[in-house]
Every structure is written in structure tokens, then in C-alpha cells.
């Protein structure tokens, strides 16, 4: 028996290794030092990770499409961009936690450690080149996420954590079963070879390799069925993870039950990573596979309706944001329906803007709430006269979430609509437009209340404005405005059709 060595190459792993180092240091180093130092160290590690992705650390990953471990890890441009989004969201979470974690009673090094482990998982998904690595990343992320949601020693957070855990593990199980089926249909875990085999399954005449031909024939009658079943199972599994209706039930509870700085993390970074997985699988490996498009479009339709309608009736701002996250899942998922060269850049752009604006909103809730239940919408009346900067920032981000130009959310929505529209899902875009109107209304109410003069005493936490949160908010708002005025800043990187062909392993 001979063993072939996997091609070991640590360069594409560098972004993850930095984060992992941070996680390990938070795990073991925190017994000797204060949490605040650990957190700053972690932020530094995240920055290093980001720099490693952009290639400013003496070597470049950008445009090099490095792979390692027999294609298990791929640092192509897609991975780098999504990794960048993840890093930005994570830095925001950590900064906010500096201010608010002690109020939420989660200010201990394990918080940082879990966060960093989750980020490692997220990056692993983004950098995955085959289903196994993706699965490992997904599980690291989810498991750390469950712990994060439960970390606060309160009934609310523990119950939400349990709910998250139970539904999340069901989702994982379905996903894994789907992966097994996909493997059964194609005989490979690698995205690129799956994409190749999918073509063969669909069209057996194209089989070139004799050995593959034998295998394809051996499984041929069942292959297509198994493939479709696998794709749909994976789709449902991911629907749990990204909270597509009707698999979204955990989302509002978890996002509103967990401490707000954790909700920030869960609703941005985790979601970005889950979408990265979907992007990799559905726009990469399964881009030619049948059936999943038509199921996904219905899921999106339900998500748009349910998410927006439910958010409309919320009176708690944090819970509103939770449902808004569900609604945005619908918009985000619309990008997946399109051809990768069109939907991919749209998704990447939308993910970044979504992370920024959602991050800011949660950051401000975290800073201003009196307890972890969040703010009531009524509590926000007159916020502009007490915390003008936060109110303006919040208004900007809410407008952006609603999709109003000139903020970045507009272009995100525009791109998503365009992607779906130009690929034959016009009815879905009309539905999305109509549900967007509902979303505008529920974003508008808190946004406008903030500017209405108010004589009653303040109902938010008075000392919420602190430098790290300010930095987060400034980063987010600046990003939202800049990306809105000059979308090319980010979009031009993503728009190159070449990188989206590589996603499915075509043209290697």
C-alpha cells in the first residue's frame, strides 16, 4: 500500500492560523492575564489575518488561487473576499464586546476563545475546497456558536442556546446526510470533481475517463435521483443554518435571547460563513445540478414574506432586527439563484454591506440597552437629542438596511434584484420589492422615532458611548456610506467573471 502525501502548503492557511493562534491564546493564556488584553490580542490577530488575505504581509494570496491539502483548502479570490467580510464582522463583534460584554456578564476569556474558534470555522468554510473541510468548518462554527449563545448565565440565553443547538444539530444532520448522498452520486467530496461528475451524471455521453465510466454506469440508474436528493438535503441543511423559512424558527429566539454582542456576531459573521458554504456548494459544485433552483426560489419567497411580516409586528428592536436578519436572508439567497458570474459578486457585495449595517445596529443596541432584552422601539424616541451621533449612525444603517440610496444597502438590494431578475425569476423580484416596502416601514418607525423630540426621561443606558463601540459604529457607517457612493471600491474586485468560473473548478 502506498500513501501519497497531501500537498502541504501553509500559505493559504495563514489567515486561519492567525485566528487559531488568537483562539489558543485566549484559551490558555487567559488564566494569567485580564480579558481585555486577550481581546486586543485577538483583534490584532484578526487584523493580521485580514492583512494576510490582502497580501500585505510580504506575500500575496490575492489572485494566486493557492490550494493545499489535495484541494481541500482553496484560497481563491472568492474565499479571500468572504474571509475579509468575516474578519470585518468579527472585529466589530470583538470591539463591541469590549464595552458591553461585562454588562452582559459574559466578560471572560472563554467568550473570546469561542468567538475566535467560531471565526476559524467560518474562515474554513470560506476557504474550503471540498465538502469535508466545509463540514468541519461548519461544525466548528456551529458548535462554538451554540456555546456563545448559551454563555450568559441566564435562563433566556440558555433556552435560546438550547433551541439553537437542537435545531442547529438537526440542520447539521440533514446536511451531513446530504453530503453522503452527494458523495454517493458523484464519488467525490471535492467541489471541482463534483461539478465535473454532475455534468457526467446529467449527460453520460461526456464521460471520458474509463474508470469513471465504469463507476458511473454501476450507479447510473440511481445517480440522478441520489444527486437531486443530496442537493435538496444539503439545501435544507443550509436553510437551517442561514435561517431560510420555514427553517428559521430558531433565529428570532436566538438572536434576541443571546447577549446583544453575541447576536451581532451570530447574525453577521455566522450568516456570512453559512452563505459562503452555500455559494461554494450551490454556485460551485452543484451549479449545473437540477431541481435545487426551483426549491430554493420557493424557500426564498416564503422567507421574504414571513421574515418581513413578522418583523413588522415586533415592538422590541432587537427582535425586530432578528426578523430583519431572516428577511435579509431572503434577499441574500436571491443572489444564489443567478449564474455565479452575476450572483456571486452580488452576494459578496451584499454580504459586506449587510455585515456593516447589521453590525452597527446591533452595536448601538448593545451600547444603549439597559439589559440584554434590547431596546423597545418606543424607548428610542428622542434618541437623536441624547446621543446624536449614534442616532444618525443608526438612521443611516436603517436606511441602508431598507435599501435607500445613497447607502450601500441600496446597491446590495439592487444587485440581488438584478441577479434574480436577469436569470428568469422576475416574479420573485416583484415579491421581493413588495416585501421590501414592508421592511421599509418597520425600519422607518424606529429611525423616525429617534428624531422626534421627547420630554420623558431617557430609557436607554446613559453611559453607552464608549470608544470601542464608537470605532465600530464609525467603521460601519463609513463603510455603508462609502460603499454606497462608490460601490466599485468593493464590487470591482468581485465583478471579475474569471474568479467565478474558478469557483466551480472550471478552467483550472
Amino acid at each position, binding site marked *: 500500500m502506498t500513501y501519497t502525501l497531501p500537498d502541504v502548503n501553509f500559505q493559504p492557511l495563514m489567515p486561519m492560523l492567525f485566528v487559531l493562534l488568537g483562539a489558543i491564546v485566549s484559551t490558555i493564556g487567559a488564566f494569567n492575564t485580564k480579558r481585555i488584553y486577550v481581546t486586543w490580542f485577538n483583534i490584532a490577530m484578526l487584523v493580521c489575518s485580514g492583512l494576510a488575505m490582502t497580501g500585505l504581509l510580504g506575500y500575496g494570496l490575492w489572485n494566486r488561487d493557492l490550494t493545499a491539502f489535495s484541494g481541500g483548502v482553496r484560497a481563491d479570490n472568492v474565499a479571500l473576499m468572504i474571509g475579509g467580510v468575516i474578519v470585518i464582522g468579527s472585529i466589530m463583534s470583538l470591539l463591541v464586546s469590549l464595552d458591553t460584554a461585562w454588562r452582559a456578564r459574559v466578560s471572560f476569556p472563554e467568550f473570546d476563545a469561542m468567538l475566535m474558534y467560531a471565526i476559524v470555522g467560518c474562515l474554513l468554510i470560506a476557504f474550503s475546497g471540498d465538502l469535508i473541510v466545509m463540514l468541519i468548518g461548519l461544525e466548528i462554527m456551529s458548535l462554538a456558536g451554540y456555546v456563545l449563545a448559551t454563555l450568559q448565565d441566564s435562563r433566556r440565553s*440558555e433556552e435560546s442556546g438550547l433551541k439553537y443547538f437542537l435545531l442547529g444539530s*438537526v440542520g447539521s444532520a440533514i446536511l*451531513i446526510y446530504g453530503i453522503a448522498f452527494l458523495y454517493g452520486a458523484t464519488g467525490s467530496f471535492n467541489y471541482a470533481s463534483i461539478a465535473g461528475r454532475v455534468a457526467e451524471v446529467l449527460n453520460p455521453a461526456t464521460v471520458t475517463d474509463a474508470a469513471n465510466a465504469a463507476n458511473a454506469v454501476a450507479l447510473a440508474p440511481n445517480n440522478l435521483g441520489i444527486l437531486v436528493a443530496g442537493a435538496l438535503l444539503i439545501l435544507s441543511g443550509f436553510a437551517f443554518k442561514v435561517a431560510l423559512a420555514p427553517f428559521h424558527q430558531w433565529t428570532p429566539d436566538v438572536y434576541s435571547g443571546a447577549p446583544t454582542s453575541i447576536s451581532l456576531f451570530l447574525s453577521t459573521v455566522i450568516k456570512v460563513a453559512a452563505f459562503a458554504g452555500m455559494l461554494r456548494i450551490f454556485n460551485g459544485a452543484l451549479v449545473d445540478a437540477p431541481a435545487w433552483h426551483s426549491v430554493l426560489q420557493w424557500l426564498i419567497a416564503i422567507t421574504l414574506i414571513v421574515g418581513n411580516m413578522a418583523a413588522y409586528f415586533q415592538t422590541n428592536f432587537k427582535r425586530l432586527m432578528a426578523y430583519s436578519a431572516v428577511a435579509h436572508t431572503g434577499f441574500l439567497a436571491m443572489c444564489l439563484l443567478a449564474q455565479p458570474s452575476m450572483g456571486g459578486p452580488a452576494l459578496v457585495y451584499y454580504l459586506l454591506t449587510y455585515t456593516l449595517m447589521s453590525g452597527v445596529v446591533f452595536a448601538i443596541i448593545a451600547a444603549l440597552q439597559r439589559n440584554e432584552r434590547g431596546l423597545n422601539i418606543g424607548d428610542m424616541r428622542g434618541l437623536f437629542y441624547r446621543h446624536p451621533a449614534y442616532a444618525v449612525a443608526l438612521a443611516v444603517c436603517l436606511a441602508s438596511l431598507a435599501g435607500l440610496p445613497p447607502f450601500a444597502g441600496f446597491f446590495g438590494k439592487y444587485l440581488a434584484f438584478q441577479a434574480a431578475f436577469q436569470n428568469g425569476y422576475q416574479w420573485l423580484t416583484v415579491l421581493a420589492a413588495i416585501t421590501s416596502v414592508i421592511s421599509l416601514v418597520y425600519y422607518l418607525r424606529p429611525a423616525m422615532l429617534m428624531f422626534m423630540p421627547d420630554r420623558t426621561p431617557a430609557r436607554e443606558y446613559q453611559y453607552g458611548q464608549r470608544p470601542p463601540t464608537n470605532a465600530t459604529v464609525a467603521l460601519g457607517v463609513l463603510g455603508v456610506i462609502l460603499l454606497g457612493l462608490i460601490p466599485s471600491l468593493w464590487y470591482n474586485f468581485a465583478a471579475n467573471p474569471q474568479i467565478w468560473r474558478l469557483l466551480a473548478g472550471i478552467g483550472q
Partner: protein
Amino acid sequence: MVGTGAYVALSGVLFALGLIGVLTRRTAIMVFLSVELMLNAANLALVAFARAWGDLVGQTAVFIVMTLAAAEVAIGLAIIVAIFRKRETTNVDDLAQLKG
């Protein structure tokens, strides 16, 4: 020699049982055990397909899935125990604090 189809069918049955368990059981532990059943169904399917393709990677995947299941057990039990110690119930319906 039992065919691949039979194994896959068996794994399908296991998976369905797990899914039914998830949907009908109200105790967190039982839901959790059903999830484990689903994971094992996936393992069975993976092994069966690995044999059909004559490929070792599928079996490696089983190893990883087993690890994931173990990690899930560890964390899931921790959460359940934490709640149990506070509330003395693991019934999902009793968690009325948070309604979807």
C-alpha cells in the same frame, strides 16, 4: 453480498426514524438522540457509498462525522445539563420563555 441499495435504504429508514423522532419527541434528550440517529444514518450511507465507489475517502468522512457527533454530544449535554440544573425540565415545550 448485500447491494449498495439495501444499505442506502436502511440508512434512509434510520434517517427517517431520526427525523420523526426530532419532530415528535418533546424531550431535549430524545430530540438529541434522534439527531444522533440521523448522523449515524449518514455514516451508514457514507460507508455504503464508499464501498460502491471503492474509495477510502468516504470512510475517512465517517471518522470525521463521528468526531463531530462526539463534539455535539459534549456541547449538547453541557447545554442540557445547564438548563436542567436550573429548571429541572428538559421538555422543549416547557421552554415557554421564548416562543417563535
